[in-house]
């Protein structure tokens, strides 16, 4: 280690640093704020913070992708693009919050600070190169969001939602940690890319030159940080994983626990139970933040995790590889999410279940990504879907927040009756968000669904060509996905029906907040513009996927028995000396 921290280290984590700095600034401003003064300017300060972070991420687009901070973190296209996503969601959340908080007598600066810190955690999570950073970032994000969920102390519902969310989250964290520990035990490293390379090597045998493999492994610089290789006498026992004597239950146990808890975070059925309670119990702006930014971060990091560490053919397509798991989770999520959403009377809960359904659609793309030979570029459809989804969701929650006034929460469908005429712009915006969520052109959601299902059909085509078994199941997944999205139209339409085709039962007055108007308009315009001109964003999401550093497409060799393992061990030993 020549130097502790290099300038590129600092530069690459600039978005995170900026967000943390703004978080602290907001905390300090809050300290010097007198009681009873309005804090809504802090919303602008935080929005500026997010804009600065997004801008720094944008500036870093030009930097070549690489490992930084002693192989702990990546600076690459993927982390920067997803950082933009998180910053947008965070900024809009901050904009819709102030008047809502003031109406509930909870207007405090800590809210914005927590949002900023949490977004910082997300940015680190999607750029993590090591399980340690991944876990720390996950906790940084989660702990801030736990606090936000229970932020409105006067609300009994929020208190309960926060507690439940926290308890489930802590449980999931423990599960994930146990999984990480087992994976670490089985491979000897916590570096994501190194794990991926090692697993892949273990599954391989026969036809590749171990020296070539080793050079590829060290090109990535991944193994350099794995101390197990350069300090010991060289008993590389972790390489026992392999297809011949294959089964290494500990490793599979660990991987399963890690993937399951990651899937828990995105809220896929059957690990979804926390989600409706958390989204609907939390204050609307926090619901918006959870449904958009947190979910986006969880999905993006799931992509990173799968692409770097667990993309080996055996792991994906083996007798019970994760493709099968995501297949069923996708199917269940689409089914349960859409069907249960129909039965809801609360818009917020409906949005929560619909968010589960969206999880299902994105899992379809992830299944497609992992299917067959495995085409990581198909993950771009998930990134694009996240953008479309974030705007639609944060906007819809934002409208609920915008309509909430002094302790009367606008949550039920009937609260929206006739509002389309009373607030025409708001009605149009809500209609746009619903159409986008339902996937009706020309909104962003249509292109997103198109991309996701197209990805699955492409994977099906490639699977048929490669003679993979069960390719037809993938097509069945697409068919059921489209059918369930037809079901979904019903409840999105219900919102529009209530907006325009029911007479108001109660006078709902909007809180009439300027920042919220800005935030909602941004989402509405983005939803429409992305729908009409999706080109740049499609390019951006493709770029994100193709420029993901350390992604597992170096080694695709299939070994048939464990023979060359000894060779590799020898080579590595020699190489490390």
């Amino acid at each position, binding site marked *: 280690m020549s130097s502790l921290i290099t300038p590129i280290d600092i530069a690459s984590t600039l978005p995170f640093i900026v967000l943390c700095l703004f978080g602290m600034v907001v905390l300090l401003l809050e300290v010097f704020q007198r009681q009873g003064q309005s804090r809504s300017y802090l919303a602008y300060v935080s929005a500026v913070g997010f804009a600065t972070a997004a801008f720094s991420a944008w500036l870093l687009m030009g930097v070549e992708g690489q490992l930084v901070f002693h192989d702990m973190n990546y600076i690459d296209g993927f982390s920067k693009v997803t950082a933009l996503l998180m910053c947008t969601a965070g900024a809009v959340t901050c904009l819709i919050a102030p008047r809502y908080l003031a109406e509930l007598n909870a207007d405090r600066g800590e809210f914005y600070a927590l949002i900023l810190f949490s977004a910082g955690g997300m940015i680190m999570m999607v750029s993590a190169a090591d399980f340690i950073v991944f876990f720390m970032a996950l906790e940084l994000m989660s702990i801030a969001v736990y606090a936000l969920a229970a932020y409105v102390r006067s609300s009994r519902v929020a208190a309960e939602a926060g507690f439940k969310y926290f308890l*489930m989250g802590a449980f*999931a964290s423990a599960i994930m940690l146990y999984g990480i520990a087992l994976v670490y035990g089985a491979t000897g490293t916590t570096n994501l890319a190194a794990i991926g390379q090692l697993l892949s090597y273990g599954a391989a045998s026969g036809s590749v030159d171990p020296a070539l493999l080793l050079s590829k492994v060290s090109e990535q610089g991944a193994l350099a940080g794995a101390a197990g290789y350069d300090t010991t006498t060289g008993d590389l026992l972790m390489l026992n994983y392999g297809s011949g004597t294959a089964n290494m239950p500990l490793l*599979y*146990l660990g991987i399963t626990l890690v993937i*399951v808890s990651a899937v828990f975070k995105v809220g896929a059925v*059957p690990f979804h139970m926390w989600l409706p309670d958390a989204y609907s119990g939390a204050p609307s702006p926090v619901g918006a933040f959870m449904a958009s930014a947190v979910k986006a971060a969880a999905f993006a990091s799931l992509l990173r995790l799968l692409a770097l560490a667990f993309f080996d053919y055996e792991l994906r397509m083996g007798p019970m590889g994760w493709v099968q798991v995501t297949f069923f989770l996708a199917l269940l999520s689409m089914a349960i999410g859409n*069907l249960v959403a*129909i039965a809801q009377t609360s818009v917020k809960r409906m949005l929560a279940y619909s968010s589960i359904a969206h999880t299902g659609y994105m899992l379809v793309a992830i299944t497609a990504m992992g299917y067959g030979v495995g085409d990581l570029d198909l993950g771009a459809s998930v990134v694009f879907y996240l953008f479309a989804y974030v705007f639609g969701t944060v906007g819809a929650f934002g409208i609920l927040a915008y309509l909430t006034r002094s302790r009367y929460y606008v949550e039920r469908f009937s609260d929206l009756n006739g509002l389309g005429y009373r607030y025409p712009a708001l009605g149009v915006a809500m209609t746009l968000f619903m159409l986008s969520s339902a996937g009706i052109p020309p909104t962003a959601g249509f292109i997103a669904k198109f991309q996701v299902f197209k990805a699955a059909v492409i994977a099906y085509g490639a699977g048929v060509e490669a003679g993979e078994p069960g390719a037809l199941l993938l097509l069945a997944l697409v068919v059921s996905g489209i059918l369930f999205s037809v079901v979904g139209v019903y409840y999105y*339409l219900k919102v529009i029906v209530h907006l325009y085709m029911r007479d108001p039962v109660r006078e709902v007055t909007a809180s009439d907040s300027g920042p919220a108007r800005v935030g909602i308009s941004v989402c509405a315009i983005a939803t429409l513009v992305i729908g009409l001109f999706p080109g740049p964003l499609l*390019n951006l999401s493709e770029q994100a996927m193709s420029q993901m550093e350390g992604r597992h497409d170096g080694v695709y060799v299939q070994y048939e028995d464990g023979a060359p393992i000894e060779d590799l061990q020898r080579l590595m030993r020699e190489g490390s000396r």
Partner: protein
Amino acid sequence: MQDIPIYEFTLLGWIALLPLLGAIFNGILGARLPRALVSTVAAGAMGVAFILSIVAVWTLFQGRFEGADGHTLYGALYHNVFTWFEVGSLRVDFELLLDPLSAVMILIITGVGFLIHVYSIGYMEGDRSWWRFFTYLNFFVFAMLMLVLGDNLVVLFLGWEGVGVASYLLIGFWYEDDEKASAGKKAFIVNRVGDFAVLLALFLLVIYAGSLSVVELREWASTLSPAQVTALGGVLTAICILLFIGCTGKSAQIPLFVWLPDAMAGPTPVSALIHAATMVTAGVYLIARLNFLFVLSPTAMTLIAVIGGLTAFFAATIGVVQNDIKKVLAYSTVSQLGFMFLAVGVGSFFAGVFHLMTHAFFKALLFLGAGSVIHGMHHEQDIRRMGGLKDYMPITRWTFLVGCLAIAGFPLFSGFFSKDEILWYTLANVHLLGGVNLSWFLWFLALGTAFLTAFYMFRLYFLTFEGECRADEKTRSHIHESPLAMTLPLVVLAVLAGFGGFVGIPPVLGNALGGLPNVMHDWLYQVIGPGEAFFAYRFEGYGMAWMSMAAATASGIGGIALAWLFYGKPSDVPGAMAEKAAAVHRILSNKYYVDEFYAATVGRGVTLLGRVCHRLVDELLIDTLLVNGTARLMGFLGSVLRVVQNGQVQRYVAFVFLGIAIILYLVLR
């Protein structure tokens, strides 16, 4: 096939944009503006769009030249608005394309659309949501123009969804009425069922053809070798059938036709424009547009023909027993749409589009006439309580009669020509399904439909306009002819319905009359040529063609005569005759026996299929599963959720724990 030149033409963008601008203007400001301004803007936008369409079509016409095979070609006009998205090799341009086929369509859409806008000014007078109506109507026209002008199938799909949304909004326009609101919902959901099939077809096309642009698809299809076609056979059939499923939803064919009769809940101009003249014909348009693709799958083609023929026939039988003036027209629309699908299914894309056009004229006319009647009789729709209206509303009566003659296929009226073409091609081409040639079967089906059509349409005419007025005194005192804004479009449409058929004189007549050209066919040849090239006549000479025409004419006139016999004869049958054959007299004078007969035989027997569809699709799928069934679903979900989502966090953890255990078991077993 010769390459078709394409010219840039910016005006196309404006044709589509004008109705959208009208919709946006009225949507935002309409509530605060005076009624006259709202309607002027809406109808004005349509009028200008119509004029621009004429200009565009004229420009297209000017560019004609003689193709390599001796046919006149016109090329195409395009305007690339922008590149919508570009992913990998797939590039979706938001490109508008005007070729002879879309030229016919935009003339119908903007022309008939303009007339119906004018008519609506009279019809919707006094409605409190006047501006909303015109906003939706303009928006519909915009979406419909997207559908027919889009070169890319994704743009077409955008219009396809857009017309669905507009139709939903307009059917449920009087949403205060729950039944009407749910009719709108039903239409939308049935259409979504079809839309998903279209989406799947698009995905398959992306994979196998690599493009969704019609121009490029046509190139792709023309370069396929016979061996490739054989290899791709299953996929091509799947694509065609999936597209056709979408068409059955949008164009109300078996089994998805159930939404259209309910859609009559909307205002009558809407029924005329959307549910008769334009939107429901989108399916026919799609198949004609992609004819080069469909002909590659004979199975799909025959299936389309059979479904179309059956729909035509069964909808006609249902039409016979309806008593609601709009319901009769609705089933007649389903039936005529079946005719069009029969036409495209038997390989005569020209006849399909030709009938689409004549149908747009006479069905819009009939609907508007019905609207005029309903307007005049203060929202009375039951024909059993009408009669004798010819004295009260002469213009409506005469125009309506023209419409009836046209749809009945009375010689030299527009319907005569298009229907004859369809019958002829049905007979002349070979349609194999499972090795059996279905030509004669389909031909008789179509002939029967023609007969039934003539019969129920004139039943409608006689019951409405002839005989004694059966309305109560109060209503009768108010019956009046409609205002000029409504009668003017009727007259214009009556002229079109009367003489519109002469653009498509069949070769058999044309030859006999000294070489009159089939203008319509020549005009469309550029688009439908590749499709038609796949079929060859079975018969030499014109003998069978004369036979077919004679049979069609006879069945049409026979239907009219029978209707006159049952419903049109003066009620005072000479007494002498009554004495001689009292029983016959009783039967003849008591025309209700006929209805009872139909109710007993046709109503119960032949309409079984219709009922099965109704049960399966409407009641089971839509009502039970989606609309009313949500209550039951909610109950069921509630009981499940009470167990799962009971609010106890420890139970949630337990389920997560269980889920992990199950997955681990599967992974580690």
